[in-house]
Each structure stands twice: as structure tokens, then as C-alpha cells.
């Protein structure tokens, strides 16, 4: 027996319809966005009658807020056409498909507009009218389509059911005889869960885009943690490290009674290696490293700096550390030697060692130039200086304006500036 399930509500996602159907049978075929066909063979041992089975299907669909139209018949075509056309539950006994379809209008078959119009001009109104015509005569007038329409109107199947492949879930669970407390024993148990999970993913040609760890605790509560590495990966050792690092910062409150890990599959990536570029670290290794450095990165104190398009001194933003591929732009056949102009551009630079925040300073002036500088950890007579260099900006936002000086003290060379808006001096950093 076959079942047709159609939702009259257009707002329901097709996945919900499939979920309802898969609750009854794994052999499900999607006919259109609002209709699925179910293979109900062998369900007679669970439901006493087709009516009981149909009622259960309707009830389950109503619980998911569908407006179900269900038809149970011994032919696939009849089940689908009746489900699309007849509200509520329809059950058709064996051999009575043609009789059940007969009163339905021709539009129930979903005919193309020219064919439907032609049949209407012939005076046909229902599927019963169409089913009564001789197939040979229709073949002379409509070609191969004629006998096919007659077979459909009589409820005769033209092709077998083509079931959708069941969705694969990658989950591995382990129930423990004795509760486990502490991360060290848990790491061994995680290996027992993650190894088979990795094997099943590998067999399917998939990687894990994310992992969800569910720990059932002795008090019955659940401790769930999700881990989403920077790139899909399939190495169970790395998974274990990532999960353990996460559990270190979010440990379960009680001892663990059961472990379950679910992986969200993702297609394995294709990587093109280069003969000439430096080998880049594997994403798995990078993800593991960043998890170990979570203490830094979570506070925003670890990552790659990026300069900001502003003249404000010391402006930058921290971004995640995700080094790009070189892409071969660097490679050429030019030999870089000390005498070439390119080498001159690489002359070593004195750089600033910044004080964050800038240190408040007391600066004495002589002939409008600093002559003595005093700041926390820094004090001395100015031996030489350059400046002032005036800079300002962001008048439309948080304005800043400063006069900068490079001053040489006995202790070193420093960059000092006078905040022109506040009239106070600061040491920005040490030139090194």
C-alpha cells in the first residue's frame, strides 16, 4: 500500500513534510514541494487497518501545524492524485483506484495547458471520462501521451517509487558503567567515541564542520558543548584536543555518566599544493593552536593586527589570525642582491615601542623646545630633539590634535607629544 501526503498550507517548509513521512517509513519520495509519496508496505503489523494508519498520519501532520490531505491506495498514482485533490483522509481499497479517481476533475492530473484545453473541447470533464476512452484512439490523436493519460486516469502506475536517500547522521555515543570524574579519564573515553565517528565520516568522504558534545551527568542533567573549528577537519586527535580544551574552560558540574558526540558533516576540501610556495600549516593544526590560545584571543589580545585608514597615531584593530595563501605573487626570477634598489627599501628601520596608554609627562621648554622630560620610569635632560610635528584629525568625531617631538635623552630616544586640546604632555613610546 502507498500513501500520499499533501499539505494544503503553502507556508510549511518541505523538510517538515518529509520529517512526518519519515516518521512512518524510510522509503519516501518527494513528488513536489507540498506532496510526498510513502511506501507503506509491511506496516499492517503495527496498525490494524489502513484507516488507523491514515488517521495516525493525519494526527502527526496536524501536530506539526500542517493542513494534511492524506490518501492511502494500492497504486502510487492514485495515492498522490487523491491526496492532492481530496481534503482529509481518503482510503481506497485494492482494485478500486479507477473508481475513486473517476469523479475528480481533469486538472487533478496536472496536465499541460494545451492538452487540458484540448480535452475540454472534446467534452471531457473528469478523470472517469478520460479513463473510459479507448487508448488506441487517443494514441492516434495524441501520440504516446494519449495511452499514458488513460493509464494515469485509471490509477495505473507508470514507474516505481524512487525513495530519497535517508539523511545521514554522524553520531557516536558511549554509556558508562561507572561515572567518570575529571578530564584525564574523559580524554581516553573521548578517543573511543571519536575514532569510530571519524572512521564513519571518512568512509562517507566527509569532514566535521562542527562537533557537538553531550555529556549526561550523574544527576540526570546534560552538559552540551559545541565546537566549530576554523576549517572542517577529520582528525580525531585534533577533535579530542579541541573538546578537552573547551571542557577545561567549561567543565561539567558533576561526574559523567554517558558521552555522545554528533558531527555536522561537510564535504572534504580539495587543496592545491604549490611546488614553490612555502608549505602552509594544516587548518587542523591552526585550529588546535588557536584553541590553546583561547585565553588570549577571547580577550581580544591575540590575533593579527590590521592598520586603520586614519592618521590617528597608533590606530589599529585586532583581527583573527588567518594567514592568506601567497598565491605566487612573490615569485619571479629576479635575484635580489645588496646593491639592487630593492635592497635599499629593506634597510632596517628604527621603530616605535609604544606605551599603551601614553605615559603622562612633565616637559620643560627652552626656546619653545623640550629641554627636560620627566615621566614614570623616565627622567632626563634633552640632548637633542626634532619637532614639533603637528597632527590632528577626527574633528567630526572624537577630535585629537598634538605636537610631536622626537627627543634624545641619555637613556634613549623617545617620542613625546603635547595634547593641544588638553594642554598636557605624554610620552608615546621609545624609538628602538
Amino acid at each position, binding site marked *: 500500500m502507498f500513501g500520499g501526503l499533501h499539505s494544503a498550507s503553502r507556508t510549511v517548509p518541505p523538510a517538515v513534510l518529509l520529517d512526518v513521512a519519515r516518521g512512518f517509513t524510510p522509503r519516501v519520495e518527494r513528488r513536489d514541494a507540498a506532496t510526498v509519496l510513502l511506501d507503506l508496505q509491511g506496516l499492517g503489523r503495527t496498525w490494524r487497518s489502513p484507516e488507523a494508519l491514515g488517521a495516525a498520519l493525519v494526527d502527526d501532520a496536524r501536530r506539526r501545524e500542517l493542513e494534511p490531505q492524506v490518501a492511502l491506495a494500492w497504486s502510487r498514482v492514485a495515492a498522490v492524485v487523491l491526496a492532492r485533490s481530496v481534503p482529509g483522509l481518503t482510503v481506497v481499497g485494492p482494485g478500486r483506484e479507477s473508481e475513486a479517481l473517476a469523479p475528480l476533475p481533469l486538472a487533478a492530473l496536472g496536465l499541460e495547458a494545451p492538452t487540458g484545453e484540448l480535452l475540454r473541447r472534446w467534452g471531457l470533464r473528469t478523470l472517469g471520462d478520460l479513463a473510459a476512452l479507448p487508448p488506441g484512439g487517443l494514441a492516434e490523436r495524441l501520440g504516446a501521451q494519449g495511452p499514458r493519460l488513460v493509464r494515469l486516469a485509471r490509477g495505473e502506475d507508470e514507474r516505481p517509487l524512487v525513495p530519497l536517500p535517508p539523511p545521514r547522521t554522524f553520531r557516536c555515543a558511549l554509556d558508562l558503567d561507572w561515572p567518570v570524574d575529571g578530564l584525564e579519564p574523559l580524554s581516553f573515553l573521548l578517543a573511543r567515541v571519536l575514532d569510530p565517528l571519524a572512521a564513519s565520516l571518512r568512509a562517507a568522504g566527509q569532514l566535521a564542520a562542527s562537533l557537538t558534545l553531550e555529556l549526561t551527568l550523574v544527576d540526570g542533567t546534560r552538559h552540551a558543548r559545541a565546537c566549530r573549528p576554523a576549517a572542517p577537519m577529520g582528525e580525531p586527535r585534533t577533535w579530542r584536543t579541541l573538546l578537552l580544551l573547551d571542557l577545561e574552560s567549561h567543565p561539567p558540574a558533576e561526574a559523567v555518566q554517558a558521552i555522545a558526540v554528533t558531527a555536522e558533516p561537510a564535504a572534504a576540501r580539495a587543496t592545491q599544493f604549490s611546488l*614553490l610556495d612555502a608549505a602552509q600549516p594544516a587548518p587542523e593544526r591552526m585550529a588546535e593552536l588557536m584553541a590553546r590560545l583561547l585565553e588570549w584571543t577571547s580577550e581580544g589580545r591575540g590575533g593579527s593586527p590590521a592598520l586603520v585608514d586614519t592618521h590617528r597615531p597608533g590606530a589599529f584593530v585586532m583581527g583573527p589570525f588567518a594567514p592568506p595563501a601567497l598565491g605566487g605573487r*612573490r615569485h619571479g626570477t629576479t635575484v635580489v642582491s645588496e646593491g639592487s634598489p630593492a635592497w635599499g627599501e629593506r634597510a632596517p628601520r628604527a621603530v616605535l615601542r609604544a606605551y599603551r596608554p601614553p605615559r603622562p609627562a612633565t616637559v620643560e621648554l627652552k626656546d619653545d623646545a623640550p629641554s627636560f622630560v620627566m615621566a614614570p620610569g623616565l627622567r632626563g635632560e634633552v640632548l637633542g630633539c626634532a619637532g614639533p610635528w603637528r597632527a590632528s584629525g577626527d574633528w567630526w568625531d572624537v577630535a585629537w590634535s598634538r605636537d610631536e617631538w622626537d627627543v634624545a635623552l641619555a637613556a634613549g630616544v623617545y617620542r613625546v607629544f603635547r595634547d593641544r586640546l588638553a594642554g598636557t604632555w605624554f610620552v608615546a613610546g621609545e624609538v628602538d
Partner: protein
Amino acid sequence: MASALKKELEDLLRLRRLQREGPPLRGEDRRRAPLPIGIPALDDLLPDGGLPRGQLSELYGAPSSGRTGVALSLASQCTAGGTLVAWVDPLDRLDPASAASAGVDLARLLWLRGDPSVRPRALLRAVAAAGTLVDSGVFDLVALDVAGFTASELQRLPGATWLRLQRALEDTAAAGLLLSGSHLAHGPRGASLCLQAQGAEWSGRPGPGRLLAGLAAEARRTGGTRRAPLHLRALA
């Protein structure tokens, strides 16, 4: 046939050194290739022509001796070659604009910024992070900037701190670099470079329009007698 041609091409590349910063070719042990600092005078001072991999090296000197500029020159050499650099900075002193002007590809730089308001803890965290970075095997250069900590603060670290870091570096392709104000520690085959500030260089006579032209310094290997002059151009 194809493999023979490929081998011939690799031999040619190896022979002519068409790319100074190219990655190691097949058969080359990258652990043996030192990291050049990119300043010929300093590279000549070192026996291998650069910082040895798998070893803890140090670069020390007083403020304005150019230690940070030299270290960033080394970092720029690494990032230009496509490798990655980690910069552990417990006192949060690195200036990204300066690093970029020194030629460092910031996208290839992992910068760990400590919190200077908790100095002893920042130092301990930084040392632990340096160990993690070395263990990862991801970076060619792991620099730990402890310049700015006083001698007493550094002495409070456990006695085996630097020995442990050296042991972690051994058998890896990474070079460890300690940036400090005074001699601290280095591995048995690691480089130890001392920089001595020679003063600032100015662009003209005192007065308006004068510029800081750069810093002059002198470099020598610890225990060595050869000295090399060093000039660092001022940052823009």
C-alpha cells in the same frame, strides 16, 4: 620523464638560488637553514649567517639600541618568504604601524598582547604562550619580547624557564628569539647578539624642520670581539 625534468628544474633552482627567500626544495632540511636577519652586517657576525633553527637566540641591548628594529627586520624576512611569525609581547609594546613600515606582513604575524597592568602575571603567561607557540610547529620564528621587565622581575621566573623553552625548540623548525634589555639566556648553538646604542642621528641643525634620521648602534656577538656598525633609518 616528467620527474627527470622536475629534478633538473629543482637542481637548477638550488644551484642558481633564483629565489633567496624561496621555500626549501625537496631533499633540503629546512631545520639546517638559518633564518637570515636581513641586515648583512649582522648576518656576517653570526656563524651560520642567521639565527639557527631549533635554538633559543637572544638579542639584547639598552633602549634605542635598535633591538626591536632588528627583530622586526628578521620578522619581515620570514613573512616575505611566506612563513609565519609569532610575537609574544607581554608589555604590549609592539606598534603595528612600525612593524608594517619595517616590511612585516601583518597578516602573517600572530601578536599576543599582554596586559602591562599585571606585570608578573603577564610575564608568566607570555612564557607559557611562547611554549605553546613553539609546540604548535606552525611558526618559523617565535619572538618573546621581555625588554622592559626589570632584572628582578625576570629573576622571579622559575630557574628552568629558558632551559624548558630551549628543550621545546629542539628538533623543531622554529627559531626562538628573546628580546631583552640585558643578557638573559640562549641555547647551546643559539645566537646571542648585543646591541649598543651609539646615539640618535638627526637630519640637520637644531631648529624647526629638523628630523630624526635614525639610530646608530654597534652590534657584537656575546663573547666575540668583532663588532659591526648598525644604522637604522627612522620610522616615518
